[in-house]
């Protein structure tokens, strides 16, 4: 050992020492970058001491303190069981001796009494003692836990580590000595790389929220103010577009806003997402799926077919933000915008990931329907699943190909064997509007105008909805067969009777009507059509383009008038 000799050559090396921690906010010494916690020139001593450490008996303000922990009581999607005895432990407890905001950093063990600034950490670094708005810590994350969750990797990937008891701690994501990736993260969180070391969300990698290069255009509110150092694009911010690891206002799922729709509309307002996905604009219209009307009702683990008392609508009811993409589809198949969401199939069974668009609509518009009947009719059915059932008497071809093999005047290259979406009729109005039934100036969130009743002056605009598939020529041209001349032209053009008076646009369920009286979507509007003196009120199908009516309509007695 030539140690003593070497001491001869000793010079004070202190000021040329440079470590990873030197230029970080965790260097609390007088030479540090941020908060100066006293006059010390040493960096380590604020947390460490070579002798008589307090690790086994933390006295830095932890004694008698109770932290509120993140568990199932905070978020239904958390699999951490409620355990009143669970408190921060391991390394996390050491972090919290400063970061719970109650103790000044200068209260180091080796320093004894405070010698410097008695300033608790503040701002984003102050997590408080209520940890229910922070990513959970001090819980065991093993293969069994991952299996219960179903959306986690079996174990964390490098460099995220668990402690000796397989617990997630602050140190799983943070290296207090190294600020290379900012916020002392152990890896960059660009593209949410760090989050994805543990989280393994279904569908995520192909989601638009994982791949979009959209930037904030600088107008309105910055959607990423909840992130200390946001990246420029949606793809780079990834999870952080909606989620906030610490001090999240929306504690459940750690969402950045407690208002569910705000997590979406902060970008889908024309300032980040492209104009054709400006949903906020649609939500200002009179008829809408009113996502503003509910708060704290939606739950990702709620039952698929909602009971009446829990009816609500949030963006997340129809969209899976981890799955959405721009994959197109043909009716009735589900497209990318609503992929990966739960629904009710045609038979009434719950499906965890819908295959057909209508299955999503059936969540709220089948059993326990949210909306009542729009028109008072001969037979009423508010369960759209019944109206569109393949065994229904007649129906628009949403869940099954249509029954009528001869539908004249079909436009848009449609044929009798094609199918359509609910959203072909129910969608935001306006040619450049986003797809889907977000908001419309027309009742029932219809894509085009659809006037009802018996005082409608026929025009291309009055029935624009119908005319978008059914050629107007078939109605405004007097010449033609009985259906065209006596039924359509006569009623629609000459007598101002709307389509809706005779036709029930969804369908007539098999339980309520027969082929004779309710084919061709015939189901009279009782506000216009009334029984004859003898009580008769029915249509009679008499075969190909032939039928008769026994009704009282507009004071005109239809005594089996046929065509």
């Amino acid at each position, binding site marked *: *050992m*030539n*140690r*003593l*000799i*070497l*001491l*001869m*050559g*000793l010079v*004070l*090396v*202190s*000021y040329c*020492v440079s*470590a*990873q*921690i*030197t230029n970080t906010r965790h260097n609390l*010494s007088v*030479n540090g970058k941020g908060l100066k916690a006293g006059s010390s*020139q*040493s*960096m*380590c*001593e604020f947390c*460490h001491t*070579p*002798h*008589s*450490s*307090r*690790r*086994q008996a933390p006295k830095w303000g932890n004694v008698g303190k109770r932290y509120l922990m993140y568990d199932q009581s905070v978020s239904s999607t958390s699999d951490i069981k409620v355990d009143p005895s669970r408190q921060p432990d*391991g*390394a996390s407890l050491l972090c919290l001796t400063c970061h719970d905001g109650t103790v000044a950093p200068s209260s180091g063990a080796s320093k004894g009494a405070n010698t410097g600034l008695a300033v608790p950490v503040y701002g984003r670094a102050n997590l408080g003692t209520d940890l229910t708005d922070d990513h959970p810590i001090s819980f065991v994350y093993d293969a069994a836990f991952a299996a219960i969750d179903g959306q986690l990797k079996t174990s964390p990937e490098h460099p995220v580590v668990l*402690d*000796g*008891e397989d617990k997630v701690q602050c140190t799983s994501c943070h290296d207090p*000595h*190294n600020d290379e990736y900012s916020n002392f993260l152990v890896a960059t969180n660009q593209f949410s790389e760090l989050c994805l070391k543990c989280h393994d969300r279904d569908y995520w990698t192909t989601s638009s929220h994982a791949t979009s290069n959209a930037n904030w255009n600088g107008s309105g509110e910055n959607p990423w103010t909840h992130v200390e150092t946001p990246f420029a694009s949606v793809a780079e911010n990834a999870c952080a577009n909606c989620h906030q690891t610490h001090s999240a206002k929306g504690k459940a799922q750690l969402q950045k806003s407690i208002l569910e729709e705000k997590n979406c509309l902060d970008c889908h307002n024309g300032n980040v997402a492209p104009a054709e996905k400006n949903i906020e604009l649609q939500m200002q219209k009179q008829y809408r799926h009113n996502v503003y009307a509910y708060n704290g009702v939606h739950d990702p683990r709620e039952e698929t077919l909602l009971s009446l008392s829990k009816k609500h609508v949030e963006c997340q009811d129809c969209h899976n933000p981890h799955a959405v993409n721009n994959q197109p589809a043909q009716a009735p198949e589900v497209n990318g915008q609503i992929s990966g969401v739960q629904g009710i199939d045609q038979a009434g069974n719950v499906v965890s990931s819908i295959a057909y668009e209508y299955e999503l609509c059936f969540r709220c518009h089948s059993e326990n329907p949210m909306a009542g009947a729009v028109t008072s009719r001969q037979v009423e059915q508010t369960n759209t699943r019944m109206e569109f059932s393949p065994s229904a008497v007649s129906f628009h071809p949403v869940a099954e190909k249509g029954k009528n093999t001869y539908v004249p005047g079909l436009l848009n290259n449609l044929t009798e064997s094609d199918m359509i979406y609910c959203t072909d009729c129910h969608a935001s109005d306006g040619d450049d509007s986003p797809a889907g039934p977000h908001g419309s100036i027309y009742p029932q969130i219809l894509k085009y105008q659809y006037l009802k009743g018996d005082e409608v002056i026929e025009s291309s605009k009055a029935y624009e909805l119908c005319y978008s598939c059914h050629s107007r020529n078939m109605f405004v041209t007097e010449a033609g067969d009985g259906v065209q001349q006596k039924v359509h032209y006569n009623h629609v053009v000459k007598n101002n009777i709307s389509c809706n008076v005779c036709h029930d646009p969804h369908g007539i369920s098999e339980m309520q009507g027969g082929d004779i009286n309710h084919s061709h979507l015939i189901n009279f509007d009782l506000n216009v059509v009334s029984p004859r003196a003898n009580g008769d009120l029915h249509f009679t199908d008499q075969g190909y383009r032939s039928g008769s009516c026994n009704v009282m309509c507009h004071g005109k007695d239809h005594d089996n008038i046929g065509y």
Partner: protein
Amino acid sequence: MCLGVAQLSTAQIAGTGHNFSAETWNESGTGEICKPCHTPHGGDNADAPLWNHAVRANTGFTMYSSGTFQGSTSAPGGISLKCLSCHDGTSNLDAHGGSAGTTNMNTEYTGANTIVGVDLSNDHPVSFIYDVDLATADGGLKDPESEISSFGTNTIEVDFLFGANGSRTVECASCHDPHGVAGVPSLLRVSNAGSALCLECHNK
């Protein structure tokens, strides 16, 4: 050079807490400065030269452990045990030169923060092998076998570790020079301003 060291060491220890020359327990305060630890004749040279103080048994200690400590230590040994033969608080200070002694730190220096005790679980670990394997396993330590210490010439293991090549250990004297270094407090070998001493090994 050796002469120089001797002169410097004497001068240094005279100004440190290890100058016991006036203590009544040390030859009635007759000015013996080296004798509590060293003797010119009949000393033991196992871990420190010409050792004159009784060395306690290496039993009864609670060693350091931590989820982030990848090293292995079961009992203090080598030169650390010599330090602890006073700093355990209960071994006699004056057990030197074959005498059993009668005075220990707990009674002589009541409440002194230099008493380490036998519970070493809250003290930096000692008597563990620090090699490249440990550095790799830890991830936050320098490779002692290849990195040059702040002294500028030799590797960390040469300048700061003890024992045979291949099993060099961290001991009390890795950080402390019992004779003191001019201008450096706490009998440290290197000033810890800027945490320089910590950063000799820790790559944080």
